[in-house]
């Protein structure tokens, strides 16, 4: 039995926006795997809910007219993993969200909820950051698009304005074309866990597979929100594919990340793991792109 004051169910995006405007205090709920847990803990006790879960228009993966990969915000993790577009262009995202919780959570949990929750440990977040995803928000004044790094404001807070809901996540063609990536979730268990640290790396190699033309790296749980590691990227961009580059890339990560000491893990431990993951993710990404270290 949940302590909620009302439940409003939207059947279209327009209706959801209207409900948001009419009930500004209400909490949006999609799959519920975060919101209901928080309500049970008493954190959102007594709140009204606006369910957007029935809006089928917000489900599914497609390529839009600008050749962006468009992921409807209500697309479940398990559907993302099995989607042919995802598998072809950004398989690492499917792999990353396949590490969320267990099978039941992956069936109910959505990528929109995963990002709107604003937590640094979300398994989709580091890959979406590393692939420079665009967040699409729909509100009373129409559609707003912003880079995912700007969507995350601080731990638990995202740039979701009055009346808005997140309707899609886009991956631009310039981001996914010829790009190959790898994600490692470092956790205490092999299932049903949140990341101690998560690292997502992707590369574009030169035609001869000898040079790293572009490399991007992002972390979850290396700071209060998911974050890129620009120093590491700068160190390896344009460099030859070699262990020397890999090691320099890994070591440079420490200039960027800022993990904290907590009872869940010590800072020194998180830093050590972050460096190791950066190297392993880069090596694997290079391999996926057809190169060899």
């Amino acid at each position, binding site marked *: *039995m*949940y*302590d909620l004051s009302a439940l409003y169910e939207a059947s279209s995006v327009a209706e959801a926006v209207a409900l948001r405007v009419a009930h500004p205090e209400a909490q949006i709920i999609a799959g519920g795997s975060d919101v209901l847990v928080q309500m049970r803990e*008493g954190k959102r*006790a*007594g709140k009204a809910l606006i369910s957007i879960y029935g809006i089928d228009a917000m489900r599914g993966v497609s390529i839009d007219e600008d050749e962006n990969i468009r992921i409807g915000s209500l697309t479940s993790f398990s559907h993302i993993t099995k989607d042919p577009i995802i598998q072809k262009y950004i398989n690492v995202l499917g792999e990353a969200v396949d590490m969320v919780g*267990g099978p039941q959570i992956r069936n109910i949990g959505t990528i929109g909820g995963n990002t709107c929750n604003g937590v640094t440990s979300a398994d989709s977040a580091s890959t979406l950051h590393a692939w420079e995803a665009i967040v699409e928000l729909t509100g009373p004044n129409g559609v707003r698009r912003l880079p995912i790094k700007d969507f995350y404001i601080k731990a638990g807070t995202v740039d979701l304005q009055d009346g808005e809901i997140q309707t899609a996540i886009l991956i631009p063609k310039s981001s996914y074309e010829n790009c190959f990536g790898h994600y490692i979730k*470092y956790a*205490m*268990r*092999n*299932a*049903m*866990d*949140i990341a*101690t640290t998560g690292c997502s790396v992707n590369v574009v190699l030169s035609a001869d597979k000898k040079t790293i033309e572009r490399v991007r790296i992002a972390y979850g749980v290396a700071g209060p929100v998911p974050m890129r590691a620009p120093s590491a990227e700068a160190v390896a961009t344009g460099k030859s594919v070699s262990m020397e580059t890999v090691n320099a890339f890994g070591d440079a990560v420490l200039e960027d990340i800022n993990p904290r000491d907590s*009872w*869940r*893990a*010590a800072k*020194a*431990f998180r830093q*050590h*793991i972050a460096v*190791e993951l950066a190297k392993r993710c880069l090596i694997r990404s290079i391999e996926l792109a057809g190169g060899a270290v």
Partner: protein
Amino acid sequence: MDVGKSVIRVDAFDKATGRAKYCDDLCDKSALIARVLHATIGNGMVKSVDTTEAEKVEGVVKIVTCFDVPHYKFPTAGHPWSTDVHHQDVADRLLLTKRVRFYGDDIAAVVAENEVAAAQALRKIKVEYEQYPVVLDVQEAMQDGASQLHAEFKNNILAHTDIRMGDYEAASKEPGLIKVEGWYDTPTVQHCHIENHICYASMEAGRVVVYSSTQIPHIVRRVIGQALGISWGKVRVVKPYIGGGFGNKQDALYEPLCAYLTTIVGGRLVKLDCSREETFVCNRVRHAIRTHIISWLRPDGSFAARKIECFSNQGAYASHGHGICAKGMGAFPQIYPCPNIEGDAYTVFTNRPVAGAMRGYGVPQATFAHEAHIEDVCKVLGVDSLEFRRKHMMPVGYVDGFSKNENYADSLNQILDKGEKYLDYSRKHKEYAAQTGNIRRGVGVALHWYNTAVWPISLESSSCRMVLNQDGSIQVQTGETEIGQGCDTAFAQMAADAVGLRVENVHMVSAQDTDVTPFGTGSYASRQTYVGGFAIAQTGAILKEKILSYACEITRQMPALLDIVEGNIIRKTDGRVLLTVGDLATQALYSLEHSQHITAESTYQIKNNAYSFGCCFAEVEVDMALCKVKLVDMINVHDCGRLINPQLAEAQVHGGMSMGIGYGMSEELKFDPKTGRVLNDNLLDYKLSTFMDHPHLEAQFVENAEPTSPYGTKALGEPPACPGAPAIRNAILNATGVAIDVAPMTPHILFDKFKEAGLI
């Protein structure tokens, strides 16, 4: 004969189809909901509780605080009652308490019409406290000046016992001895049974009726009587199917409070359903035990003298108390005998959650220390650790002076043989000894012995009732409880053999009801199959004798010449089937000349115990840079005597191995050092290992029939959980050369240890 066959569980279909009824399924939906207000300080006094705002919440029926409840102190441990006042469990609990001894202690309770009203009311109760410093560590709690939890236990020491064999001091001064010393730490863990503790209570005919998810209905009845200050017969406890217990439910948990709450709301039905968070913090946990071992060895490897000190973290209340630590230390002198042993065990109160019984009852902690230490000894001596064990472990013919347990067969060597062969241990142990590189493999072994049941420390008795139906089938009841482990099935097999029936004609009455179930102390101590076997064999013989006696009236054949085989009365002299038990039962019940309801009931007091043996061999792969251990393969081998049901035995071993994996690699409750609050009171942050963290689990057996048991059986419930963690620890040592003496061996610990060793 059905004993020895993998008969399908008698409850398999009901459980697999969801028809089996557990507490919450049975509770009427009109029940009032009780919720407990838990203290938000770790140590101190409640100065006042203001319920004014909470009382205003719509749907609140009653709020009681620690200032309202009756003052009958009661013990909670699921031990048989002792009529000797000196052997009774420590009575240190009240239904609700003003004196807060851990973060989460029970200080008030709300009874409301529904869960939401109860939760809202809880949030509106205001409590004023006086706070005392929190002490969480055993060694700190024993210091003079540390916060005292219970005035009558100086330096927070609940109990101290010792072992003195030979002369340790003198023996350790023998010239030329090699000293090996270690400290071994085990964590506070929780049982994590699927079904949280739940109970509901109401009043009927002036009595309190409590349904509970418990392992020990008859004991809970006694404790409720003690807590409410009413005679025990005024209490009726019913135990339906339960979703696991592992010892947590071998304690009176919230049954006394729930029983009290119904009495103050006019006997209305009140349900108290623990959340998972409450299960972690406010039920029971496993004792964290710190063990110090010194071995003095001669150059030939023989032990000259050994010393052991055990410090057990009791948490805030006595519960099962010193029994756990004492049992663990008691395992020490026997597994590797030595003439000169000095042992001291301390059980110490701290402001942690209450530690009670948990599968293995001190032996998983002890085995981690004992077997880690033996591996260290072998490393110092430079000898093969398996050969060393074989040379120095408990020999055949060893008899324990206290329990009179005897090691009848060469079980330890036989189980080691099987494990060694399965894992190719000896070859790998040498091959893995000097690896470099990032990925390293290792193998490890650990062995242990285990008592079956609690004799001679406590009472061991078992009762059984059998009732013959018209069709020749029987109902069977025992005082031993089915808690998911499968004892109903084992008992059905035993009863079938004892009477001479087919197992499908034995109907186990699984639910226990203290009004109608024969007395028994419940499910614990790996005792069910062993102890239940005596009463079943005896009662089966009585029933059989009655059936054959009636058969004599019908057939005019001498009873001694008759037997019952697969439900038929046969004449042994020629094997002729004279009639079926069903025909006999129908005649007996409806006979106009001699009507008889054929039943049998008896109690057998067991004054035996039996050594059960087990070992684990584990293989790991360590990713040095990531500080991660992957379990590659794992085998447990047990000698629990003759297997009653091989498939169920195997399942029991799998479950225990899983528990050992969590114990060794990931599970621990973490505490805020300032307040004692449990930081990870949920299944996300508490790292119970999952299916994905398990390798193939191989379970094998050696079957040396236990001569004291009518069915040749002995303990298997707890032993499988004992040797896993030290086997993993020794495998990591083999792989990396690093001895990890703190369980669980998480990446956090490995990171520190590998850094220390200069490996990363």
